[in-house]
């Protein structure tokens, strides 16, 4: 495997312009002859399919839900960044680029990040043209808010439902193309395998989730836009059906997987409350704009609160520890997510946690006093309502309780500057790729990246790839490679279903898929979560391997492969999570430094901040698959910073 990042030459600010000026194009008559498969209908997938369809390509788009509008981009609350400088507060493309590189702890590729900042403004223009109802001020112009990791207000938002509105915009554009016949929509369809013919991605095998039938689709290029793999941890802010499997089957077929250990833990989620819990709910980071985070200063107060003897409002101002404001005076409650999460964990581990002991307060009393309840309600009303429905507590009267939770995965399929993976013809966009966020993503940047990839990057770079594909003609789904791939999927499903049959089951008490998934999640959270070290990672690896062995003996999947069978779907995804978990652990083990979301307790400064090792680890780790149970090998893509001055990340 050879990694060629294909970064165009020339000064950073001119790379994308030069690329676009010299790339190959496909003429309109030929576009009709080229087929593209897009897997996933979130921001990246829907925007890519809509744009490619509008250009004239034949697009087939697939999602596992009943409608493209369900994709988990819809749940993003806070906003989308763009370097518009509408607030005249010193923002610029250069500033957004620097903030993103710094936020990612100097582990992202300069050229990609610069391009992201460069196209960010056009995204907002596009969305407004589609009718996305962004928040406006009384003059009718667009409003902005500030967000973690930045000192300017560059975040555009639509109440606390920005992801929903952006996705509905992209869904509208996609619907238009479906009506025009350039895009064909396949819902309740799960990609089970990638078909590679003569070294190029040429199609996919799909399971129809209603009938269980396996279907084949052939194309000249395939786009994976299926999001991240945060659900390895079971409890996360991801949707129940979000999964890493489409990306993972591509990895099995030869696509390199980069930086799997970079997992983002979001600081403001509703804390875990019971064993039956199925997911964690995020409270938008925008709440940190006005909310102040604290725990009691005295341990005995924290103990009394946990025992139910004291209420948060009983704690006098001077006995509260606003630990973020104390440790990071310059950024205060607006430090990046990884920093805020670790600080919460540090306080709770030290015995100052509230609630179950794993929670801190997010207090709006000051904001309500300063702005009035009405303003706070207008800004955050739906979030407060959501909190109240879940916890049965009124955040206008008592502080919210929050705790960090798995949220986003910066790692993903390795892609070059063109967003092409190591398999020619296979592209990855949005959270599914690794490219723009380094070791930590800034708030409101996921939506920006998803739409940048789909609207403004892939439509250019895919043409460059497809230009010479006009000579190969229609790709046939009858090729032997399709036969083989379909057969392998069928065998895989049968193998899983067989474990649960009475004659093969080796235990008296079988367990459901969820039961194994919960146990996997606990292992990963405990030993490969917010803080990691050699000892914990060794333990994690051993426990995951043991659990996987047990899975293959004792899991019980009812029903058959020829019907709607959610348990079988979950089992396939969990099978992939076991491999993925081991790779996360290996990657975390090999990266002997702390950076962004990856915190190795052996590598920290005296005051508990991350300690990078630029000399040895300033590279992207791209892993190659060699078969089930075989150790993966790693290639390094060195990160070269020509433009930016490398510095210690400092938010003090």
């Amino acid at each position, binding site marked *: 495997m050879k990694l060629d990042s294909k970064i165009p030459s020339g000064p950073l600010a001119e790379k994308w312009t030069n690329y676009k000026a010299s790339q190959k194009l496909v003429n309109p008559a030929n576009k009709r002859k080229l087929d593209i498969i897009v897997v996933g209908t979130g921001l990246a997938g829907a*925007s890519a399919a*809509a*744009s490619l369809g*509008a250009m004239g390509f034949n697009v087939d788009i697939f999602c596992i*839900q*009943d*409608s*493209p*509008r*369900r994709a*988990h981009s819809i*749940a993003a609350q806070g906003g989308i960044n763009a370097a*518009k400088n*509408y607030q005249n507060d010193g923002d610029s493309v250069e500033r957004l680029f620097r903030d993103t590189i710094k936020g990612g702890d100097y582990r992202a590729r300069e050229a990609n990040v610069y391009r992201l900042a460069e196209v960010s403004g056009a995204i*907002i*223009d*596009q969305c*407004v*043209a*589609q*009718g996305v*109802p*962004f*928040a*406006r001020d009384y*003059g*009718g*112009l*667009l409003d902005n808010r500030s967000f973690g990791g930045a000192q300017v207000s560059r975040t555009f938002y639509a109440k606390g*439902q920005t992801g*929903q*509105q952006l996705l509905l915009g992209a869904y*509208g*554009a996609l*619907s*238009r193309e479906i*009506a025009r016949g350039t895009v064909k929509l396949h*819902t309740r369809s799960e990609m089970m395998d990638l078909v590679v013919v003569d070294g190029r991605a040429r199609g996919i095998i799909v399971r129809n989730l*209603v009938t269980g039938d396996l279907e084949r689709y052939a194309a000249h290029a395939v786009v994976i836009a299926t999001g991240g793999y945060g659900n390895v941890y079971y409890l996360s802010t991801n*949707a*129940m*059906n979000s999964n890493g499997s489409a990306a993972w089957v591509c990895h099995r077929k030869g696509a390199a997987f980069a930086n799997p250990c970079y997992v983002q833990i979001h600081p403001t989620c509703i804390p875990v409350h019971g064993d*039956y819990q*199925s997911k964690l*709910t995020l409270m938008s980071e925008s709440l940190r704009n006005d909310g102040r985070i604290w725990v009691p200063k005295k341990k005995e107060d924290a103990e009394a609160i946990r025992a139910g003897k004291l209420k948060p409002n009983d704690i006098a101002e001077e006995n509260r520890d606003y630990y973020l404001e104390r440790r990071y005076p310059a950024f205060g409650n607006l430090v990046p997510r990884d920093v805020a999460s670790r600080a919460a964990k540090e306080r709770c581990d030290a015995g100052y946690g509230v609630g179950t002991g794993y929670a801190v307060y997010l207090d709006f009393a000051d904001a309500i006093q300063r702005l009035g309840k009405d303003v706070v309600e207008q800004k955050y009303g739906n979030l407060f309502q*959501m909190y109240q*429905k879940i916890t*049965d507590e009124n955040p206008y009267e008592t502080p919210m309780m929050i705790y960090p939770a798995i949220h986003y995965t910066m790692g993903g399929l390795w892609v070059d500057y063109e967003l092409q993976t190591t398999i020619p013809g296979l592209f990855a966009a949005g959270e599914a790729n690794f490219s723009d966020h380094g070791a930590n993503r800034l708030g409101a940047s996921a939506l920006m990246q998803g739409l940048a990839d789909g*609207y*403004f990057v892939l439509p250019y770079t895919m043409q460059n790839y497809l230009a010479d594909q006009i000579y190969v003609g229609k790709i046939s789904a009858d090729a032997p490679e399709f036969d083989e791939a379909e057969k392998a999927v069928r065998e895989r499903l049968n193998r899983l279903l067989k474990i649960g049959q009475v004659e093969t089951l080796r235990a008296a*008490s*079988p*367990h*459901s898929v*969820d039961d194994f998934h919960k146990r996997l999640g606990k292992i990963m959270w405990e030993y490969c979560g917010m803080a990691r070290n050699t000892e914990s990672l060794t333990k994690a690896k051993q426990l995951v391997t043991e659990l996987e062995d047990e899975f293959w003996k004792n899991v*019980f999947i*009812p029903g058959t492969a020829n*019907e*709607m069978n*959610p348990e079988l779907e979950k089992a396939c995804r969990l099978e992939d999570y076991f491999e993925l978990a081991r790779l996360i652990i290996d990657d975390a083990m090999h990266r002997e430094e702390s950076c962004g979301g990856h915190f190795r307790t052996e590598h920290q400064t005296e005051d508990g901040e991350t300690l990078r090792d630029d000399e040895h680890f300033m590279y992207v780790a791209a892993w190659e698959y060699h078969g089930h149970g075989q150790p993966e090998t790693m290639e390094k893509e060195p990160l070269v910073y020509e433009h930016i001055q490398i510095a210690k990340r400092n938010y003090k």
Partner: protein
Amino acid sequence: MKFTLHIWRQENARAKGHFETYPIDGISPDCSFLEMLDILNEHLINDRIAHPVCFDNDCREGICGMCGLYINGRPHGNDDGITTCQLHMRKFRDGDEIWIEPWRAKPFPVIRDLIVDRSAFDKIIQAGGYISTTTGGVPDANMIPIPKHAADMAMDAASCIGCGACVAACKNASAMLFVGAKISHLALLPQGRVEAADRVRKMVCKMDELGFGNCTNTYACEAECPKLIKRQNISRLNRQWIGALFGRDRRE
């Protein structure tokens, strides 16, 4: 807490459905409704009693619109302004009998158990529920000032999650609130006015063609909408429709 669940079971679209009764015990009041069904399924699987109950769900935070159960005669259960995934067991009394059904409407055929096919909604949107833009070549975002109250009203209408509760609640299985919300969202914005007349004609025709009923002004849809979409959106839909039929077409 302890409950008796009566759940609609139906193997596939062609099979005949029926209610099955399952007792369940030891449920925490802080448990969500869907987590309670997870616990039931866990029990059905581990004790090999039956195929687990199939129900649609995804984000479990009330925004994706995937979940939707008819609980004791109400879409999304006995609370206002929430989806099924946001319903908690503390809203029930210990010992309650709970009847759980799929959405019942001709344009939403049952796929399995509590899962229905809502692709009719996608088809209505495809008929014209968007502003025709191609990527790139659009004006700067601040070129089009929009009065705050119009933007806010558009946002309220746009917060529809497409769950189908309005259709399930309506005795006529009318989709007027769903269609009205999209029509309003786009008609309230200057960008959307260009195609407004065409849009309302196409969406209403598609809605009728797919077998959704008409509105007889009972407003059950508004009462059950998890996103509190207002019935004024239906009035706006009617005004737009009449305007499109009898008014001057903007293209002329």
